[in-house]
């Protein structure tokens, strides 16, 4: 038994070693470039770690550029999306889990299949709709879009979580005189907390990292997001890599931080929601 264990463990460590390098190398490169001077970033052959360490790229991006604005916009949009999506997903998940009504399977199927509508199909007409109601080029328009895109996943995940709480507990609480709302908070909520966190993170990540909708639905600098800001830096005449990488580091920090802080919930949420016996 131990021989098998030893072999499989060492193989596992080997694999994980490769993964470490594979996963981390781009991050390292991103960080390293962001600390270089412009001259050094053009050096041939490239240097692995900056010879002249400098924070000038960061200062250019954070102080002189519009990055703080992009950052704020992304935060507002992503956070709002996360909250709305989770809330509405919760309502829907609860409805699907706790009630029996005609056409439930069909409706559930519709929600799931709506995920398959590609963004490029929708952005054009949606953009016309937004312009008609004056929501083009606004954060609100984006929030509405992102909330809807993340709804199917939120609903499905939260439903899965609520399902794990036996209905009997509900009924017991209600027999004791609790209203549905009380029941929800005392019985269901504690158990599905990880699921809710997972949903929040997931919706946040999606909204934070989107490009297509932002590109199509906004045009002013004042509502541009981090992803948009970065791509716009690229389409200029010269690509100033240190600044681009500095912006990327800053742009990647919130999702990474969020993930690191709440990864337990995220993984539990994903696994429980996705894999059930």
């Amino acid at each position, binding site marked *: 038994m131990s021989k098998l264990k030893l072999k499989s463990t060492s193989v596992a460590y080997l694999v994980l070693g490769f993964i470490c390098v594979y996963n981390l190398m781009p991050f390292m490169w991103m960080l390293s470039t962001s600390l270089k001077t412009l001259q050094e970033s053009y050096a041939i052959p490239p240097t692995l770690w900056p010879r002249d360490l400098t924070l000038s790229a960061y200062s250019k991006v954070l102080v002189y550029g519009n990055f703080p604005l992009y950052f704020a916009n992304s935060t507002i949009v992503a956070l709002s999306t996360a909250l709305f999506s989770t809330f509405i997903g919760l309502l829907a998940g609860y409805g699907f889990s706790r009630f029996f009504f005609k056409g439930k399977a069909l409706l559930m199927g519709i929600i799931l299949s709506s995920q398959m509508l590609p963004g490029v199909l929708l952005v054009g007409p949606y953009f016309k709709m937004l*312009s008609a109601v004056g929501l*083009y*080029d606004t954060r609100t328009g984006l929030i509405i879009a992102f909330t809807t895109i993340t709804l199917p996943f939120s609903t499905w995940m939260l439903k899965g979580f609520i399902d794990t709480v036996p209905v009997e507990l509900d009924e017991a609480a209600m027999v004791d005189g609790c209203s549905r709302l009380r029941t929800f908070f005392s019985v269901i909520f504690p158990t599905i907390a990880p699921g809710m966190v997972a949903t929040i993170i997931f919706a946040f990540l999606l909204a934070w990292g989107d490009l297509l909708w932002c590109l*199509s639905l906004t045009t002013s*600098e004042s509502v541009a997001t981090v992803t948009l800001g970065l791509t*716009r830096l690229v389409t*200029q*005449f010269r690509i100033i890599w240190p600044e681009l990488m500095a912006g990327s580091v800053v742009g990647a920090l919130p999702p990474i931080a969020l993930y690191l802080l709440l990864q337990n919930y995220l993984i539990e949420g994903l696994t429980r929601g996705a894999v059930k016996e």
Partner: protein
Amino acid sequence: MSRKKLVVIGLVISGLIFAIGPCYAQKITLVFSDWHLTEPHWEQALKEGIAVFEAENPEIKVKLDYVSYAEKETKYATALEAGKGPDVFHLHAYSMRSFIERGYLYDITEFIEKEGSCWYGKDFLDPWYPQTLELVSKDGRYYGLPGDFMAMVLFRNKKLFQEAGLPTDIPPRTWDDFLAYAKKLTRDRNNDGRVDTWGFGTVGAISPGFELRFTPVLFSHGGSYLTPDNKRCALDTPEAKRAFKFFIELYTRYGVIPPGVTARNPGDVREQLATEEVAMILGSGWTVPIVDGLNPDLKASEVLEASPVPVAAGVSPKYTTTAWLSTWVIGRNTKYPEAAWKLLRHQTSKPMTEKWFRDARVLSSRRDVSGGLESLGITGYNELLFDKFARVIAGELAHAKFVPQVKEWPQIIETVNTAVQEAFTKAKSPEQALSEACRRINSILK
């Protein structure tokens, strides 16, 4: 407080509101968008020009909107479709036809008619070169005023010529001369065993700037994109095939273009010239100031020379190069058409276009600035006529033809751009890439 005092105070306040109110109410904000704002020397010039305008029109405030060269069409089109968009903006002739057809631009015909006459007594539109006015009009209505108008010419680095043992004062007149020069200019300058300088730099990336660098080669070989009625692709003629093959083989066969051409956009090519990675490029009025800004040590205005685009041996086409035209337009969703017109008129006025030349070395589409009205006793702008580069560029205007003005042009030129990429990377042979592009263009035009 006594009632009398209250009435007096009320009257004073109303009086103040009536006096000051209109001043605030009349403050109009126009949004002005221009990709040139992202270029330092242009940005300065534009800001100064706008300051003059705001001083002359105190009730109008101009807000600047920056947009990148590659994305401007997309950005403007989506904004205008959505009912928004800038009030006044600068457009590349490349997209003028599709913008007019889509109805994105404000019809300024009435404003023009109201203007009456120009400063030397003729019609308001008289100063502009007639061919430029064609590009901004449709069915007798005008949708913009022509802006910068320059022919594409060949720039060469005299110093590199000298180092390669080539005569510095004789520009290549035919493409065969050009190729011979380019081969000699492609060499190992720092003696490290590797070639580090090449004869020619050009655009191979998908970029609006590709059109300006490929078209002169096509035209000077006697080829054209479309048949004269603009209904069919004309890239299957022997002349066009020859031009295409020549362009491609500069890279694939003779190696006089640096590696990685399919990733080069206009900015990269200018940088190649500035760092002496290449000895020749096609460019125009904007080239020297930008190159100078990239590498002041090069002393671009001394070291560079401009000459007409070479021609192919055995052909004498009427048009050997293409012209760049930018246009100033008003967005159709503007809330203040009159104010926007004032700004438009200001940006295209004689003093302003002379300023654009002084600051950015761009030639104007006004003949009273760039020349062409000598018969009326009006000479162009002195500084322009004596500038060694502007002289050549203005002189080539007579040999410059615009690309076809059809609404499908962006898609057509991208098809050619892609075919060039495929041939550069040897994914297809030049003949194959071109014939497939031609077929595709025909289906686009149907």
